[in-house]
């Protein structure tokens, strides 16, 4: 059996800010333009993909983030087992989307590290390294943005008030998390 080695080992806590990696979480990028693609995904997952830019939708098991007009990220709400990387959702979508030539399904589970941030200082942290205007974003649940934090591409999902999911590519995650801790220590 293979050992599972994620990047971020310890949860971190500062006044008004807690940061931890959520893992293992299945993540898929799905892409498609056709109307049938949207309905096939909806039927397969019992989840309507958000069609408004920079928004998200959620079912009990899954969350879908709008990334571009023909691109979404789907991630599992639950934590999965770490000894197995076979996902039923992926299989189902492969069958209903790829095999029917409606679009593309790509496993990106370890492409992104999911860091969950909680607390009222989340956006104070972001302001130290991201040019994005979070003024309206922070008060609207479910909004999504793709921006940079200290020059690193990130996806930010405003899951709830003072509860944010940050997705960063794995190779950058150690550097980013170190930077976030450094910045958080002075908030």
């Amino acid at each position: 059996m293979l050992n599972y080695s994620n990047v971020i080992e310890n949860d971190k806590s500062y006044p008004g800010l807690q940061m931890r990696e959520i893992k293992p979480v299945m993540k898929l990028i799905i892409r498609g333009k056709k109307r049938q693609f949207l309905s096939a995904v909806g039927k397969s997952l019992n989840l309507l993909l958000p069609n408004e830019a920079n928004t998200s939708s959620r079912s009990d098991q899954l969350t879908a983030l709008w990334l571009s007009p023909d691109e979404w990220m789907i991630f599992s709400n639950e934590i999965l087992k770490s000894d197995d990387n076979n996902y039923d959702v992926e299989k189902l979508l492969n069958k209903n989307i790829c095999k029917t030539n409606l679009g593309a399904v790509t496993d990106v589970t370890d492409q992104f590290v999911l860091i969950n941030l909680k607390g009222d200082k989340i956006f104070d942290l972001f302001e130290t390294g991201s040019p994005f205007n979070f003024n309206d974003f922070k008060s609207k649940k479910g909004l999504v943005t793709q921006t940079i934090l200290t020059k690193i591409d990130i996806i930010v999902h405003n899951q709830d008030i003072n509860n944010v999911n940050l997705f960063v590519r794995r190779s950058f995650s150690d550097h980013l998390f170190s930077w976030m801790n450094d910045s958080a220590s002075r908030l």
Partner: protein
Amino acid sequence: MIKNLRVKSSKLVDETYRISFKFNGSTYYGFKGDTLASALLANNIHLVGRSFKYHRPRGIMTAGSEEPNAIVQLHNGTSRTEPNVRATEMEIYEGLVASSQNCWPSVKFDIGGINNFLSPLLPAGFYYKTFMWPASFWGKYEYFIRKSAGLGKSPNVPDPDIYEHKYIHCDVLVIGAGISGIIAAKTAAKNGFRTLLVEEKSYLGGSTIYQDSEFFKINNQNSASWLEKEINEIKKIENLEIKTRTSVAAFHGYNFLLARENLTDHLPLEQRENKTRQKLLKIRAKKVITATGSIERPLIFDNNDRPGILLSSAIKKYADLFGVACGEKNILFTNNDSAYETAISLIQKGIKVQAIIDNREEIDSKLIKETEKNNIKIYKGYTIVDTSGYKRINSISIMKLSKDGQKVIGSKENISCDNLGISGGWTPAVHLFTQSGGKLKFRDDDQVFIPNSYPSNQISIGSCRGDFTLDEILINATKLLKDFLNIKKTEYENIEIYSAFNKSKRNIWLLPSNKILGKTKSFIDFQNDATAKDIKLALREGFRSIEHVKRYTTTGMGTDQGKLGNMHALGIISETASSKMGELGTTTFRPPYTPLAFGTIVGRNVGKYFDITRKTPIHEWHVENKAEFENVGQWKRAWYYPQNGENMHEAVQRESKAARDSAGILDASTLGKIDIQGTDASEFLNRVYTNAWSKLEIGKCRYGLMLNEDGMVYDDGVTTRLDENHYIMTTTTGGAATVLGKLEDYLQTEWPGLDVYLTSVTDHYATISVCGPNSKKIIQKVIPEIDLSDKDFPHMSFKNSKIGKVKCRVMRISFTGEQSYEINIQANYAKSVWDNCMEAGKEFNITPYGTETMHLLRAEKGFIIAGQDTDATMTPIDLQMDWIVSKKKFDFIGKRSLYRSDTIREDRKQLVGLITDNPEEILEEGAQIVADMNKTPIEMLGHVTSSYFSPNLKKSIALGVVKGGKNMMGQKLIIPMEKKQINVTVTDPVFLDKENKRLNA
């Protein structure tokens, strides 16, 4: 002599909190709230520095950021030392150590002061004229010029402070918290705009907050009291953020501004530990209201630079705000009513005013009447023609002005004094407005430049737009704010304003003297010692443009950027050249408005955060096994693994030998990986690669070369067909992001009809490459269920597999020329698989190798590295890779360019192998290649692109590009080095196993 000139307590200064500080080695005391300037003045110290060129004694001249003279070095010789700090802005703290600049051995006795006596020999342009000849002497001149250049000393040890950046987005940004800024911020915030108010000083209210006089009233209250209530109100508004000690440094296009927020400079050093010193605020504002006020002008007359000569408004501020008298025998010299405001303030505080010299002849105003009531002698229609006192002014000489103001008449009269306030009217602070691209117009009435057209969503209000009286400011600001914020009403509609200020002014740019101009020193730029005489000399010598005069005379080129004197320089040019001020224009105002520390600009992008580092999932293993790392793009890649004190060469020789003889293992996770899906995926690959893809079988891999539209090699890699409509493409490590961007761009803009989707999976998969004769045995142990037989799994093929319950992909591809397998596995399992490979390979002496060995192994095989053996001028044909260019395909990116006359030339630089005559001699990469050393000029045929000593071939090998190299096989060439020539023979670039026996073994 030390005196206490503290005359009255003020709201800003806390006299219960005494602070000691050192200036030029002596200890002095001030109070909390004092600036270094106010504290020194309270101790009767005016002499604080020496001017740049003539080393003339100079004193504190202003009370703000426009200060040209009182610039000091803080904490000299320590890590926190900082030059050119304006004493007028520096708040004192316990333990502050400041010293004068540009003087030796001391500010009181400065050897450089001899320049003042040599000044007739040092006109403007002295350096340009003098050091032209003889040319051979330049080395000697340079030594002395460099020694005398610059002000202050830069720190030579690392900065211990922390600096940060912060991004701010607001609806309305108000710059400046004087009376205009306060009412603007309140109006904006109360109307629902998310508002940010920034003020460079530590307090709010500008000059009105200490305007506590019966002559300036709002709603029947003294203007200071009225404003204080407004300030207290705005502090309670929720959507209004106020930042003091925050100076806007730059106003860029589209309302993007940079500001420096100063957080700890006013604190004792021991209280600064682990705190952020300064923040660079990056502000994006939907609307900007500039309320930066105005700067009082000096007056230009002979010897107008002595310590003890201050702007009149500064004297008032030191008295009103800091409770400090700048002198005991004060004289004011003015061309407008401002000096009378100062006089009234001084009288109120019991500070003696000897006299007022007013160059206006017939004047009358309430302020003047009030002054006259106090038996102060007013010399109307007079001007100062000279001053005396070397280290502190002690008297002035005045004469009557002629009616036209062009000359002086009558006899000279001397008046003794210890302090002189000068007021030449006011200059709107339009610096930020013009930085943003705003255009100015010249108002002839009072000779000021004011904003004309706004390039972005912004307005200027208050005195920075030329409204100088209280009533003008409030009435116009209210009107402008309503339009700008699109609101119907403000709370300042029916306000009652009383201002006794009379706007009359007699503007004379250069006041006449009883001496000829050549005998005077009428300073315009106080820091750089540019005088009126210098400006006129520049004009005589043919300079006309203000930009040229500025550079020739250095006017406005000091740390203060000419905030005081630039207008006078323009005025004198205009008068002398008989041109109109409005047509002359101004010099360019460039950011920053006040100097910024490098630390503030850099923020936290220092040390380990200087640049981003990317790590592979196996990175920690490489660290534990003492790998040396090399930067490849932002990646940290294992370079080589030295053992027992090996150097790089020795380690690489060992690693490459092991890889060929038994087994080597490489972390290849950094290669770019792009998942390609869609019914047109094959057609897409046909278009982006030079070779054909439609017939590639599922489960097979193919090497591809990607060109730019100019036909030059851009990237390369192996792409695998995973399914009918599903491929995975690999790219070079450094090219991954740009290749994905380029391909996505083609799909979106050129080929929107193609049904293809791209997704990066670079970080999702780790890639472990095991190569060498024993690689098959090792992989078999790691993945027992996979059939690795050559028949079932030949070179350039792929299989899906599983390790435990974890799915993975195995490719049999090779970059080393050895039999080689790559396991692609989800990143979080990669470390475990690597460990398994190491364990399984133990019996075969599996040897981890880094990028250096990888480069050597591929060079033995003649495989190129895009970016090392290519440089955006190499076509596939130049690389002798004609075989990869399909002749049958309808099109691919770059195809057309391959048939241009230039790209089919036979004598283009082409990739060849190079073998040295001496097999031990290793060529230097980048070395030039020539054929004939005697030809003049020597013809450079090309250069070495890759070079190694091959332990497997037991000789030096190299790749290089050589003009017409393809047809030069066997020819002798020369590599000329600094002290020797190396003879080489041109060969085929494939040095090892041309028949691919090892690959297929």
